[in-house]
């Protein structure tokens, strides 16, 4: 039997209670305000008054990405802003934006943006003047990385692509 929400266009997008969404937004706001902090599902679920078991699914339904991936995009966005707008050493930026080591930061940054932190700094600082006339956080948010797949999946796909690329002879 057909599900009540199905129609000729396929399953209807699941509807969510606006009051629940407002509380989920609060969890998102808290990550936005302090993306360098650790945000366990337990902590986020508490902010939203949702059970831990339901939080991640509800959040993804509402905002399109799992909460931890959303947090990663905010950290990268913030790191990018610090690379562009300050002369802080890259290690400091890594620590300030929530990473424990330069290696993890650099690798994640490259996986998500396709550029090294240092490479991006040079390029962004050149483009910095142009963004000055927009409120900073909107200019920054417009460049938030779109992390539509998990970082691990992205790494795997890139590794596969390298393996199968005919132009690169395999070195063993």
């Amino acid at each position, binding site marked *: 039997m057909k599900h009540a929400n199905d129609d000729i266009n396929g399953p209807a997008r699941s*509807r*969510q209670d*606006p*009051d629940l*969404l*407002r509380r*989920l*937004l*609060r969890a*998102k*706001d*808290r990550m*936005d*305000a302090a993306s360098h902090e650790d945000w366990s599902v337990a902590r986020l679920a508490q902010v939203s008054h949702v059970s831990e078991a339901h939080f991640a699914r509800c959040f993804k339904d*509402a*905002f399109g990405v799992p909460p931890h991936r959303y947090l990663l995009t905010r950290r990268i966005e913030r790191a990018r802003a610090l690379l562009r707008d300050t002369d802080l050493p890259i290690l400091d930026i890594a620590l300030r934006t929530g990473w424990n080591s330069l290696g993890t930061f650099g690798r994640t940054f490259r996986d998500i943006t396709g550029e090294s932190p240092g490479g991006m700094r040079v390029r962004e600082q050149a483009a910095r003047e142009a963004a*000055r006339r927009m*409120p*900073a*956080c*909107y200019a920054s948010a417009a460049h938030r990385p779109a992390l539509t797949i998990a970082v691990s999946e992205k790494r795997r796909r890139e590794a596969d692509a390298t393996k199968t690329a005919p132009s690169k002879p395999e070195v063993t």
Partner: protein
Amino acid sequence: MSQGVGVVGLYVRDQDEALEFYVGKLGFRVHTDVNGGGYRWLTVQHPEQPSFQLGLFKPQEPLLDAATVQAVREIVAKGAMPPLILDVADCRAAYEQLSARGVEFTQPPEERYGNVDANFRDPSGNGWKMIESRRGKH
């Protein structure tokens, strides 16, 4: 001034709650509050900006169909409506005052490029940025 933008509307989940927020907490004034056939036209004004009204409207039937009402309520609650900016003379003082009144700040005052700004949301989820601009000073 005889030409220009007169009213810009926000969608809110509850007009009484919105009135309490914009008037009771932010210090706006009621401009128009009238009921007609189950529809409430509610606009408020910043006390220093008499030529502009902020509408506090509820997405409702029959102006919108039921599915659209639900979609709009979801969008507002997810904070996906466009940015709103409130100019203030002193962002840190306004932050202290509004925090004490229970305004939900999502970012405390921060200085960037010489401007101080803070973020807050109304009860429905509409996001405001409160900016103290040097351009406003001399």
